[in-house]
């Protein structure tokens, strides 16, 4: 459980160009949830998630990890970072080792585990992202963009975090690569029961997977709830430069025309079922 209490953060303290990136953000992230964090460019998503593992220290406010303040004297940041795994935007830019396997070993090695355990974890993490042994000895710089990203994600998974935070893991991937990565994350969530925070621009991506959506706007939490609740505010979302999934619009248009369809539909499958029911009923 991670708890944020009135977090404020200002970039460039002490210079002329101050940016108030987070304004009084309070959140609770219970164990085992799959959360989508959504917001327009510059809304403060990346800044917010860097607080969760202590990479950025809040200007004011407090963060509790399992009830303990992470800013307290003597709190182990390294311990926190092994429990809260953070995959950065374009994580492939952080690869540096001569081969894929060694690179994935970097995280567990920093945790001070023994060699056996390090290798086992690296292998397991690579399997989780769908890269088999044939990739082990390949230089990470010879892989495709999507493969590099998997290696980078595996590098964080190998630390076996309880909370996995992914900052736009699908940016710049084709639809197939995007679905594969998201499906793997969802599987991880299901099978291991870890908490996942998925940062994204796209409601479409997120709607399919998450239990809860947090919408950020200008450094503040604008909406926080289950997807259908949030999508009900699709008009407000638009003013924030976001959009609800396209099916929402079809459903709303049909409702406006007087078709008796429930308004809580968020995925294409649900819409299909509902429309078939209505159309079938008329025939």
């Amino acid at each position: 459980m991670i708890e944020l209490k009135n977090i404020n953060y200002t970039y460039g303290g002490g210079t002329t160009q101050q940016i108030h990136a987070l304004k009084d953000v309070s959140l609770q992230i219970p164990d085992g949830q799959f959360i989508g964090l959504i917001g327009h460019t510059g809304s403060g998503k990346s800044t917010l998630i860097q607080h969760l593992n202590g990479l950025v220290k809040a200007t004011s406010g407090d963060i509790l990890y399992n009830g303990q303040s992470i800013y307290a004297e003597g709190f182990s940041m390294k311990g926190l970072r092994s429990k809260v795994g953070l995959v950065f935007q374009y994580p492939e830019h952080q690869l540096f080792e001569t081969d894929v396997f060694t690179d994935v070993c970097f995280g567990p090695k920093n945790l001070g585990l023994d060699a056996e355990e390090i290798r086992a974890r690296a292998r397991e993490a690579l399997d989780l992202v769908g890269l088999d042994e044939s990739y082990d000895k390949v230089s990470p710089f010879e892989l495709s963009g999507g493969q590099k990203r998997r290696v980078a994600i595996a590098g964080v998974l190998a630390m076996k975090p309880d909370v996995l935070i992914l900052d736009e893991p699908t940016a710049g991937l084709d639809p197939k690569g995007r679905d594969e990565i998201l499906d793997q994350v969802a599987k991880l969530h299901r099978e291991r029961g870890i908490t996942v925070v998925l940062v994204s621009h796209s409601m479409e991506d997120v709607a399919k997977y998450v239990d809860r959506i947090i919408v950020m706007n200008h450094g503040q939490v604008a909406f926080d709830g289950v997807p259908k609740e949030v999508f009900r505010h699709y008009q407000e979302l638009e003013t924030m430069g976001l959009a609800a999934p396209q099916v929402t619009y079809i459903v709303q248009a049909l409702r406006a025309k007087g078709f008796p369809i429930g308004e809580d539909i968020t995925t294409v499958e649900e819409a299909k079922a509902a429309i078939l029911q209505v159309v079938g009923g008329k025939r």
Partner: protein
Amino acid sequence: MIRDITIGQYYPADSLLHRLDPRVKLLGTLVFIVSLFIADSWLGYVLAAAFLALMIRLSNVPLKFMLRGLKAVMILLLISVGFNIFLTDGEHVLLEFWIIKITWEGVKQALFMGTRLIFLIMGSSLMTLTTTPNQLTDGLETGLGFLKKIHVPIHEIAMMMSIALRFIPILIEETDKIMKAQMARGADFETGGLIQKAKALVPILVPLFISSFRRATDLAMAMEARCYNGGDRTKMKPLKYETRDYITYVVFAIYLALMILVGRL
């Protein structure tokens, strides 16, 4: 931490110094540096300090910001001061034991050297703080344009400089990002001995080099795609002297003359 390096950074503000023609500032900085080497007495250094203080006052750059830049070169400063204290020979011995001998001349020399270095760094960072990299290279290119006559590729040099300067903040940002990414993977840059600390740099340096090469290739490609071939380009905003620029030249000339007169007294 890494953002403390202010050399080569631009501080956006509106001030007389910001508005001056870059050629004036370049030549002015050169004059100031020369004046520091002319100065060889307390009076000379007081004059230089007063002049520098005036310039900082006119620039609207907070002193705090300038001092932060000094922190980055502290080690260099300490080394040169140390050398001067311990290695200068003289008559008035202040302290002597074993092979260490500190003389009054040495202390004086070290003080002058230290002050000179500090002024030098502050003077030149004042120029970069008040001049955008673009203006700076524009100024260099126009100011040194006469060298083209003897086939010095001044445009190419200016272009390289402006690209290098432009990349400093980008690289700083990139370093910050990569450091954070590796810290998220449990990397530790603070503890351990010297060798361990050096080793800890590998996960930062390798990605940094790779991304620099990537950026360089991208930039070269983008320049070629826009038919850049160096050489004769016209400017959108050609540099033009204003009255304030002439006045500043005169001020610098007076300062230099004063320094020559009293700097060695």
